């Protein structure tokens, strides 16, 4: 059976599985439809949270960034896992005790202000739309390869499917569907990683294989070999740092506090049965996330090694040591169709040379060998995970499985975010504040329109995205870090934080971060409207737009503290509310004062 047919069968089968479970679970428990997670064991809830959380950025994009950035991409690994520690220790148990259902509701109640609630809704919408743009890019890459069409057509197909998926609505809310998605996703990620780790290092555990020796007879450690090979081609050493320490520090911080401020993640902890469960649920979610996150570094390193060895088949500089273009493997030809991989025989020698032609020392050597520039002109980082099993020559069913896993990751998260956007607009904003008399039917319609609008916008921006999927998603985290997290944390840990402070803080954090991002990425991400080229020399103190969320959060905290000090303290009942959410017991009982 050819690859295309197997891919259709496996993708089709997994989709049928999700829909089947949704229908079965729906029939079994209509009453629990809106309270997924209630009465569900923390382990199951953790698994569902992990599926909800791990998106195209984690599945498709992250290992590709690791492959090309090496050590520097550690920020994504630490940032997207370390945030769960903050979430578990600083927010989850208290928000559970508070017992409301959405983040804007908590902010509106704690800061006794409709304005605060509206500001939180606006922050939530901006964060979620940015996040969906990143997902659309991932969906476009996966569909482009799966249907063997260009990336742009892939995005359009993805937009249609995401819309249907999100409108089905409740499907997303059902924890069992998400558990199935997690199983497909983690299976699809780890199976090829185990195969490849066995091939390269002889160790089936990728986490150990990455620290092991290669089986090519040299007895070298994998990472040492990779360092050597990439440096021979003029690239920076894989395990060495390239970016500044300040930027790595702030980017990690931004991703961590962004994780703890993401509305669709926080919401999961509102619905567990007890405060006790909110604490351990975050731990279980992180266990399931860590399985993918500790595998990703091995996937990245091994993909880089395999890619280089495909092109560079012998010692660098030897005439016959580069692959002949007529003999390029099938996977390269297939990926060329998506427009995300391309090459050009610049020196007309019939062979492909891949090296760093921005490195003057390397260019000098290359000229002596008759090389006239890097001929692998385009390798989109977002293709690495999907192409990895093909590069390693794994069986077709593994390749098809990875496509299914990538689609599961991207679609589940995109659909979840779109639901969050639609409920924020129709429920929190229209029904809650602007038009309280809105009928239920009209509210539903408004939600659908908001969802369609968000997909169109995100898809359109996803075709010309402001970065690779993981980088766009990192921007969304920066915005969450700068706006939502400080308001939540101060709401719990400071009795003095008042509505004026929180509103001013959220606005200051959001605007400063948004303007910094737009300055380098273009206003509203429109191509060609950037005020300055997005290069380290132009950045403020060398801080990249992705890392600026940590600065925005600092601005937010500072503004909350100063403005709250200068204005009247919150009313007494709010101070009692804060005292009450700090203690787990006695939920729904009157406060003893």
């Amino acid at each position, binding site marked *: 059976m050819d690859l295309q047919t197997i891919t259709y069968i496996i993708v089709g089968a997994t989709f049928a599985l999700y829909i089947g479970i949704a229908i079965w679970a729906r029939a079994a428990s209509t009453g629990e439809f809106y309270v997924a997670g209630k009465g569900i064991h923390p382990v199951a809830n953790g698994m569902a949270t992990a599926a909800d959380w791990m998106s195209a950025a984690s599945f498709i994009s992250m290992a590709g960034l690791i492959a090309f950035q090496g050590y520097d991409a550690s920020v994504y*690994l630490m940032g997207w896992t370390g945030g769960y520690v903050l979430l578990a220790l600083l927010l989850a148990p208290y928000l559970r005790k508070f017992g409301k259902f959405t983040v804007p509701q908590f902010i509106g109640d704690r800061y006794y202000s409709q304005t605060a609630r509206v500001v939180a809704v606006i922050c939530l919408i901006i964060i979620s739309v940015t996040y969906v743009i990143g997902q659309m890019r991932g969906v476009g890459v996966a569909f482009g390869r799966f249907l063997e069409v260009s990336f742009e057509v892939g995005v359009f197909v993805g937009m249609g499917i995401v819309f249907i998926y999100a409108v089905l609505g409740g499907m997303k809310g059902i924890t069992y569907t998400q558990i199935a998605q997690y199983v497909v996703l983690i299976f699809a990620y780890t199976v090829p990683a185990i195969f490849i780790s066995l091939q390269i290092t002889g160790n089936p555990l990728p986490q150990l294989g990455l620290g092991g020796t290669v089986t090519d007879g040299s007895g070298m450690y994998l990472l040492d070999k990779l360092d050597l090979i990439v440096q021979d081609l003029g690239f920076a050493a894989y395990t060495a740092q390239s970016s500044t320490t300040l930027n790595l520090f702030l980017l990690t911080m931004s991703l961590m506090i962004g994780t703890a401020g993401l509305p669709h993640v926080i919401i999961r902890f509102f619905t567990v049965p007890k405060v006790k469960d909110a604490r351990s649920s975050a731990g279980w979610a992180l266990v399931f996330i860590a399985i993918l996150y500790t595998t990703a570094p091995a996937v990245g390193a091994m993909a880089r090694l395999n890619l280089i060895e495909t092109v560079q088949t012998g010692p660098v500089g030897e005439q016959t040591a580069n692959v002949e273009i007529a003999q390029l493997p099938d996977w390269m030809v297939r990926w060329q169709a998506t427009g995300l991989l391309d090459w050009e025989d610049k020196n007309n020698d019939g062979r492909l040379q891949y090296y760093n032609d921005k490195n003057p020392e390397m260019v000098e050597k290359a000229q002596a060998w008759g090389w006239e520039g890097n001929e692998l002109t385009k390798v989109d980082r977002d293709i690495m995970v999907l192409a990895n099993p093909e590069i390693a020559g794994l069986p077709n069913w593994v390749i098809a499985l990875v496509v299914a896993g990538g689609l599961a990751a991207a679609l589940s998260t995109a659909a979840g975010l779109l639901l969050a956007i639609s409920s924020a607009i129709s429920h929190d904003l229209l029904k809650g504040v602007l038009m309280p008399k809105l009928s239920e039917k009209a509210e539903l319609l408004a939600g659908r329109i908001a969802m369609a609008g968000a997909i169109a916008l995100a898809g359109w921006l996803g075709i010309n995205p402001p970065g690779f999927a993981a980088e766009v998603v990192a921007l969304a985290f920066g915005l969450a870090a700068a706006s939502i997290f400080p308001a939540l944390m101060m709401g719990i840990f400071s009795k003095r934080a008042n509505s004026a402070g929180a509103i001013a803080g959220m606005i200051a954090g959001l605007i400063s971060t948004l303007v910094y991002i737009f300055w380098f990425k273009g206003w509203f991400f429109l191509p060609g409207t950037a005020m300055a080229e997005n290069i380290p020399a132009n950045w403020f103190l060398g801080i990249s737009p992705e890392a600026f969320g940590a600065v925005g959060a600092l601005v937010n905290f500072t503004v909350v503290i100063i403005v709250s000090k200068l204005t009247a303290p919150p009313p007494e009942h709010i101070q009692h509310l804060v005292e009450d959410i700090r203690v787990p017991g006695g939920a729904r009982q009157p406060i003893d004062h």
Partner: protein
Amino acid sequence: MTSDKRAGYWKANLTLLVVLLTIWFVVSFGFGILLVEPLNAFSLGGYKLGFWFAQQGSIYTFVVLIFVYAFLMNRLDKRYDVHEE
């Protein structure tokens, strides 16, 4: 619940947070970023130690931290008799 007891519970909670968040900071920002160069002089199998903390060790520590937190807080709840039914 008396306000003294309430304050004592909250103080114990904050102390625990400070200890756990210090570990959180040290393994990631400390070992993985600020001290990565000196730690890379040591190795763990084929991993340079700083690199290992950045791409593996910090993640394992995070998982342990959350479970330790959940365990100690549940114990604290019982000690102060504020646990849920």
